[in-house]
């Protein structure tokens, strides 16, 4: 008999969730991670610490710029960055510690070390006490992803940094250059801009948040510009000179070439699957040309070896990885685990937040799917007005003939929470009329979703 029914390599939100689900289903499960702290990129150096800093920096910004409107004067506003970072670290520590507890509770054996797939049912783990081989009925690969490096702007961890270092700067940069206007670039750019940095974002494409609905992306850009971020779109970094104190970056756009000086450069041009140097190909695991593991319903080219999360194609999102982990664990246990990639929500935690699920107008046009659009702005919503956060809108896209909801796009306050309603609706193949006929509490931000759904049929009440 094999040592384990399942060995999971990688303790991020894909791997640890898969391990818990497998253990719940009675599989003897081991989880291998080379970091003594479980949780992966997301919990240690991604989603969670960035949210902590976004909240802290937003409060700081509000204290300086927003409280006045409420009639609150703040004298002698001070930034204690060290304490802000300590709070962030404490949150990370609590959550990652919690995962360790969850492993114990579910009787998942955690093995510290570097896991390496050898082939079907065989994993080598190398820890501080040497290497040993484990046998397993099934193996789930969940090693996640790593930041993509720009060849002409390699990471040095000091001046040219990735998201990991951007979460623990010991002082606010004077000028921060962010390369890449995706979720990571905009979130970290926002944090440091709110704390006082002069932030310029360089993006290769003509639109920030390229996966988002264009109208909302443009609206978000205007909001961020209002907060002091500068954008250089359709621009490419062509060269860089790094000294001990500054980085001088040459940026090429249609308008020509210019040099930008910054004391830090955050390169956030994307992440790549962590498949290099893992011995995967030697074990027979086929990769595609972009380095993702080739999967067929999460099965790799090696029998009984599965790949989930950032290793498998699709958006690199923690919740996508977790759901895939659950689905694969269930399938290993003989259940019909399923995963629907068309209803993965995607959130950018800027202010206002951007949240999206399903297809954008641009995608629908390209696919020549007839649709109707319902829009409703937060500025006409009582709760948003009371919050003093009136920017943004909700846009509901529904099929012209069947009324089935095809996509919901949101820009505005707390839309990271509001998007859940749209995901539920889409999972149930709901029509815009379904949303329109469901009661939403008043006064809440969710009324904007309701009104946008009503607006599909041109019957919004408050517009």
């Amino acid at each position, binding site marked *: 008999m094999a040592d384990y029914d399942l060995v999971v390599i990688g303790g991020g939100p894909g791997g640890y969730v898969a391990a818990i689900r497998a253990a719940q289903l009675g599989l003897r499960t081991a989880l291998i991670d080379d970091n003594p702290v479980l949780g992966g990129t997301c919990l240690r150096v991604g989603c969670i610490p960035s949210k902590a800093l976004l909240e802290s920096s937003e409060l700081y910004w509000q204290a300086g710029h927003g409280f006045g409107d409420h009639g609150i004067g703040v004298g002698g506003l001070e930034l204690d960055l060290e304490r802000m970072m300590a709070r962030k670290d404490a949150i990370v520590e609590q959550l990652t510690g919690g995962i360790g507890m969850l492993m114990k509770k579910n009787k998942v054996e955690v093995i510290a070390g570097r896991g390496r797939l050898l082939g079907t049912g065989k994993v080598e783990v190398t820890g501080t006490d040497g290497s040993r081989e484990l046998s397993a009925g099934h193996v789930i690969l969940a090693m996640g992803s790593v930041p993509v490096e720009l060849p002409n702007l390699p990471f040095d961890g000091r001046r040219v940094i990735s998201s990991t270092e951007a979460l623990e700067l010991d002082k606010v940069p004077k000028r921060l250059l962010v390369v890449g206007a995706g979720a990571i670039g905009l979130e970290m750019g926002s944090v440091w801009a709110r704390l006082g940095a002069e932030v310029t974002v360089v993006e290769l494409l003509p639109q920030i948040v390229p996966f988002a609905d264009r109208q909302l992306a443009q609206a978000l850009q205007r909001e961020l510009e209002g907060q002091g971020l500068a954008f250089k779109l359709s621009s490419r970094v062509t060269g860089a000179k790094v000294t001990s104190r500054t980085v001088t970056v040459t940026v090429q756009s249609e308008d020509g070439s210019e040099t930008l000086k910054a004391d830090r450069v955050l390169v956030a041009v994307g992440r790549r699957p962590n498949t290099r140097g893992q011995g995967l190909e030697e074990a027979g695991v086929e990769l595609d040309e972009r380095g993702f593991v080739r999967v067929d319903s999460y099965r790799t080219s090696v029998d009984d070896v599965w790949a989930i999360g950032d290793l498998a194609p699709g958006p690199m999102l923690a919740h996508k990885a977790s759901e895939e982990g659950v689905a694969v664990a269930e399938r290993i246990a003989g259940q019909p685990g399923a995963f629907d990639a068309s209803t993965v929500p995607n959130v950018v935690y800027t202010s206002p937040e951007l949240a999206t699920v399903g297809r954008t107008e641009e995608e629908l046009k390209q696919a020549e799917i007839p649709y109707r659009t319902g829009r409703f702005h937060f500025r006409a919503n009582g709760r948003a007005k009371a919050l003093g956060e009136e920017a943004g809108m909700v846009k509901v896209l529904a099929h012209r*003939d069947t009324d*089935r909801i095809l996509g919901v796009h949101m820009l505005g306050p707390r839309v990271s929470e509001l998007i859940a309603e749209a995901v539920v609706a889409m999972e*149930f*193949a709901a*029509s815009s*009329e*379904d949303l329109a006929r*469901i009661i939403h509490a008043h006064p809440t931000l969710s009324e904007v979703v309701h009104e946008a759904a009503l607006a599909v049929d041109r019957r919004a009440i408050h517009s």
Partner: protein
Amino acid sequence: MSVPLKVPEVGESVREGFLTEWLRSDGDVVAADEPLYVLETDKVTMTINADVGGRLTIKVPAGEEVEVGQAVAEIDDSVEAPATPPAPEPEAAAPEQPETAAEQPTPPAAPEARTPKPAQSSATAGSVADLSPAVRRLVLEHDLDPGVISGSGRGGRLTKEDVLRYLDERPREAPAASPAPRPAPAAPPAVPAASGERQTRRRMSPLRQRLAQRLVEAQQTAAMLTTFNEVDMSRVIALRKQWRERFRERHGVDLGFMSFFVKATVNALAFVPAVNAFLDGDEIVDNHYYDIGVAVSTERGLVVPVIRDADRLTFAGVESAIAELAEKARTGKLTLENLNGGVFTVSNGGIFGSMLSTPILNPPQSAILGMHAIKKRPVVVGEDDRVEVRPMMYLALSYDHRLVDGREAVTFLKRIVECLEDPERLLLEV
């Protein structure tokens, strides 16, 4: 008292199947022997009826795998069943008003405006509350029985899209827009093309899985090859034309081509007994009976019901047997007894217009006859080598060469051709 509705024994060696469709909704009042759900097994698809009448509580949703003996629903037989099975009678259903309506004092002679025919929708009222808001609106607005619409949402839930499609397709199917629920919506769940996906995935039905498995098995085990011939159908066509009316008057069935082919097959099997045999390990089993399978295409896949003792049947007997089996296949009422034990199969690809094909054996049988489309072709006939236009059909005989020699196969097929070109041979046995 609630009586569990268990999956019945449907035949030996069948232990499980898929409950593919509920024909009535949760909360409906059903009559004894009324068709309740469709059970699909690897052998056969059938409709299962209610054991007793009463209020139906569904335990297992459509699309689930079920085992023989498993309770898939409960029927509360203390609730009086309507008199006629499929259409819930307004009177009988009236006491089953939704509780809310019953608790509220009803203003006399003032029915609620939104439900103009409360009695008719009441049988499904329990499930109307479970519908999504837009579906609820549509169902009330059009006075529909949601139980007859097939749902494409999670767990078979109805989406607005499903109801719109149903409304769109309804006029063609039921022009009178009868308020009575149709007993069995035959339409297979449509692929949600509106979502615009380039690919969608569907589960393979057990019937198709079994079919696929058997076809591959046949390909892999038998030394299969196919011999061809062609048959001039002039005489058969002339006979049919001449006797069609009288035949129908006398026997109550149409004189089709199939009876000629089945009788010709029986004749040829008697002529070349090697074809009426099969291999069992290292033994040869010779059949001394003539149960002929006829491949029938249904919505759920190919099935091969068997005509028993075709040698003892008249032409009319063969035609009625085929008519009966085809009807059963269409309505999903074939039983295992209808499918087991054929010695030879006749497959008619001609109805779809096939000119020539190589049929795959139906194990453990050793041969299968493929019929094809009748096409007018110039052929050389007579002593004087005239070229005439004749209604021609290609015939294919696939056979297991391990058991049947080429000479036997060719002779067999030639015999069928002779019997069809000179049908009096069947009468005179020459």
